[in-house]
């Protein structure tokens, strides 16, 4: 905690001077929260499902996990961070979707390389950076002392994504494969998955080359191939398939 306050303070001290400075490199910790109750609620068929109520009484409302994002102006890497202190609910479902995702983005070559684990299968996804049509909104939020603008995008034809990005960070990155905004995404919400990513900690560090190393293990596919392969594997899983497709498309 102390470290965090220190980091924030040093950042504030650093960023306030009259000649405004931009942040060119650093490390952001994202806190990912999955609203477990809301997910359970979606499963309720009619009226209150007693098993769900039981579950609710035993588990925290949010399943929290942490991800680190290290970036400079040419590249960024997003990977699992520290363990959550509280009991991670998703753990009992095998860690939950996208908890082990690693995404490397190179802004120079426009390449995005990611390692995604879907159920028990590891994929090594190589593709170009995803281009989304980001719709800009008036709303402004301050996140980790950065002033952020709101933008709304759509993935998988119909899944809304809400992003708050700051122009004070030069890299156009964000959690998972999100990016392509005029700055860094510090808060991201995918309402359909009841999930948010919020920057809770920022450190000014100078990344070294080894920070950006991504393993090339896993089945080598493009994003499109991944989606197609999952669609065929999960075609009899109904609504569950849809959700897993969204998770793997993040």
């Amino acid at each position, binding site marked *: *905690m102390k470290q965090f306050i220190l980091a924030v303070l040093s950042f504030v001290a650093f*960023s306030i001077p009259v000649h*405004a400075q*931009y942040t*060119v*490199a650093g490390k952001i910790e994202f806190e990912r929260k999955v609203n477990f109750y*809301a997910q359970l609620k*979606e*499963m309720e*068929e*009619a*009226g*209150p*499902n*007693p*098993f769900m*109520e*039981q579950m609710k*009484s035993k588990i925290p409302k949010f399943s929290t996990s942490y991800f680190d994002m290290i970036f*400079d*102006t040419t590249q960024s890497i997003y990977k699992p961070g520290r363990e959550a202190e509280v*009991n991670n609910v*998703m*753990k*009992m*479902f*095998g*860690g*939950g979707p996208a908890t082990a995702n690693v995404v490397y983005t190179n*802004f120079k070559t*426009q390449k995005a390389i990611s390692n995604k684990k*879907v*159920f*028990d*299968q590891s994929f090594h996804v190589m593709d170009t950076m995803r281009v989304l049509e*980001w*719709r*800009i*909104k*008036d709303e402004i*939020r301050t996140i980790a002392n950065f*002033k952020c603008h709101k933008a*709304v995008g759509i993935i998988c034809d119909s899944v809304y994504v809400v992003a708050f990005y700051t*122009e004070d960070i*030069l890299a156009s990155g964000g959690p998972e494969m999100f990016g392509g905004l005029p*700055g860094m995404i510090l808060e991201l*919400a995918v*309402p359909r998955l*009841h999930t948010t990513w*919020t920057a809770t900690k920022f450190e000014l560090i100078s990344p070294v080359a080894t920070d950006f190393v991504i393993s090339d293990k896993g089945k080598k596919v493009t994003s499109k191939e991944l989606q197609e*392969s999952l669609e*065929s*594997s999960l075609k*009899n*899983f*109904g*609504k*569950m398939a849809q*959700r*897993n497709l969204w998770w793997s498309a993040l």
Partner: protein
Amino acid sequence: MRTILLSFILIAGFFQAGWAQQYIVKGYVHDTLNYQSLPSASVVLIRTNDSVIQSYTRSHSDGSFELKVPKQGRYILHVTFPHFADFQDVIDVHDFVTSYGTVQMESSEHILKEFVLKKNIAAIKIKGDTTEYMADSFKVKDNATVEDLLKRLPGITVDKNGSITAQGETVQKVLVDGEEFFSDDPKVVTQGLQAAVVEKVQVFDKKSDQAEFTGIDDGQKTKTINLSLKEDKKKGVFGKVEAGGGTDGYFQNQGMINAFKAKRQLSAFGIMSNTDKVGLGWQDNNSFSSGAGVTEINDEGQVSITSVGSGDEIAGWDGKYNGEGLPKVWTGGLHFADKWNEDKQHIVGNYRYGMQNVEVNGLTTTQNPLTNDSVSVTREKRNQFSTGDRHGLDGMYEWKIDSFTTLKVTAAAGQKQQDISTMYNSTTMLQDSILSNTNDKKSTSTSTSTFVNADVLLRKKFRTKGRSFSLDVKENYKETNSDGRLISATDLYRADTIAFVNNVNQKKTSTTNTLAFSARATYTEPLSKKTFLELNYGLTVNNSLAQNFSYDTNLATGKMDLLNTFYSSDYKYNIFTNTGGIAARFVYEKYNFSFGSDVSDARYNQVNQLHGDSARNYDYLNFFPRATFVYQVGRSNSFRFNYQGSTRQPTITEVTPLNQNTDPLNIVVGNPDLKQQFTHAFSVRYNNFKMLSGRFLFASGSFNVINDAISTSTSNTDGLRQTRYINVTGNYNGFAFFGYGYKLKKIDMQMGAHLNAGINHINSIINGKQNTTNNNSYTLTPTVQYYKDKKYSIEFNPSVTYNDNQSSVSQNSSYWMSNNELSGTVQLPGKMEFNTSFNWFLRQQTELFSTNNNVMLWNAYLSKKFLKKSNLELRASVLDILNQNIGYSRTAQAGIITEDAYNSIRRYGMLSLIWNFSNTPGGVPPQPGGMMMMRR
């Protein structure tokens, strides 16, 4: 710094090159006050028609920028620079190069307006930083939305776009019951929710989550509105009604209704049936009892769900009859549950009543080995009728005293009454041709049993992860009284003439009662982040009484009141048990293991009240060592090894000689010199499955070695069997299972096979000779499933079993059995569904079991669903179309081979109407959805 900046600008340029590049917008970014160029300012072009970001860049070190857009048209030029006001202007792009000129940026000065709430009427409360509006105090029209309500609240304004301003500041978050309603926009909430369901509107400055957690105010605040919903709007009714009438007098009716209001639930159900539907089944039972089961989640995130029994002794988990014969039931129940004080207090109550009649006609064939290497075969017919009813009452109260401490009190009480009347008729033949004995027996009894159980559980966790304490105190009381009559006539033959006659006509009464108290304390302590120590100590006091009295006819009075002391017994027991244990657990990311042992000291005190013998004392020291090793990678690959050692002390009937004549041909003699047996149980399990390819592999095995096994010594003379319990060495048994399956992706077919194997090696003594039996069985079940979503599904599971029974003194009996199941469902147009299933049971006939017991069980139904939500179903079904069904079992153990065939429900047709209803206004809307999270 500079070089990084420069390279970024280069990249940004490169990035833009990826787009079509016909039209260029150029300009400069300047600070108006100091006339300095502003480098790295963010410059964005936004399409005016849909607000989509078309293109963005950063200004160069001299403040210049250049953007490329693919199309002509109107764009918003948006420029930002830290500590300067955002700049925004609309530009028209029609030339190939549009020069905007200089963007003049102004340093921003933020003026905070202070808002003072002047009025303080009753409808508005101010609690600290929160302003609370009571929604009902502000009149809105029927079906008004929350937005309409907000417009009426003083201090809140809503503009034509739906943006909300509270106390002069833009509201950024709208919460519903403290939850962030996930949507792009607060508008979605305020326009989509009915004003009538809102109880309070709270306006406050939400501190950042970090500040809330640490208590250190970081000054980040978000103007927030919380809509607190009315509890009574979370209400509704749902349930199910099923009415079915069939041929041959068959009926099956079920009703269930659940009404809930906020956290309070009241449910009722009733079943009337003479089919195999005798209970609610786990799904219905679950919604009925609001899952009063216990869900536990441990530190490793594993979930265990213990569901409460349905309370129906005769019903299996699926609500179907699991006993012999033909059942007829009338059963019903009430359930109440409520939670209050932020769910800290939880109460559940249940009442159940059941009445059932069961009619059984059966034939049991038993082969017993004899002294002279030959066998005796007994065929016994039985006709039984039982009728009874039961009342059950149970309740649970849980109090979460604080976030670390929970107190749970459960109590249950019940009463059961049953009348059973059975006629037995048996004949025993020697070598299948010589008549040995015949027996005719009629046994009737009326019994009443009552039980009262209570359990108080206190659990406390501590701030240190892994430290916990629990104390469990239990009380159990059970009393059974029965009153009956035994009339039995046994004729023993020698060379086809009656050599001996044994007639019994006695009144039998019995009373058993047990009162037990136990307490157990468990404490876990983390020795490190990976190591945990568990200590437990418990004691049990058990006082019980077992009285069995037989009365003969008093020739003087003609009444049946003459106590037969030989066939009567009256024992009082006092058992005091002390148990203590210690275990260590090591938890690592991929594996964990634990080991430890419990030691228990049991002291028996037995008083023979009838014969006035001096009290006997038995002391047993029992050990329960255990060890577990689990290796888990992800969720799809796991290996588990388990060892458990346990002592079993002899039961009272094994130790104490009780004279019985209820089965005059089968006499059991106690053995006071019996020692405890000790079982070493080893088990392994390996699971591996691949979700995406549909491949799975399960393997498991167990092996038990029993030292000083409590076995039997039997002797057969003249058709009379006497059994005595003895300790033997060398007994063991084992079980293995292997399952493999995969999916043929192209045609979407799931294929697989299971292999089961069981071995059982038992030493015993038969007619004074050492007898070693090996009862082994092997089953192979291939499975094929073909499934097409919403069209059809077909499943084929042929299964074949080989039973190999070898005995060193008696005849061997080995046979094949097979069960082939084929079922399919087709979805027809017009919400119709057709299902049919075949179960072909083949039971190999042997010399001994020469009756044909093969059955082809064929069922089918056709159903049609009605209404918009398909919640009304009409179903026509025929069960056992070929009218062949029988109940059947064949077992072999310790040289004795038994076959049992009994009556079972046969062919009937039924027409039923099933209606699932649900009415949940305002509160919890019914949402369709699968178990997706659970599988994930």
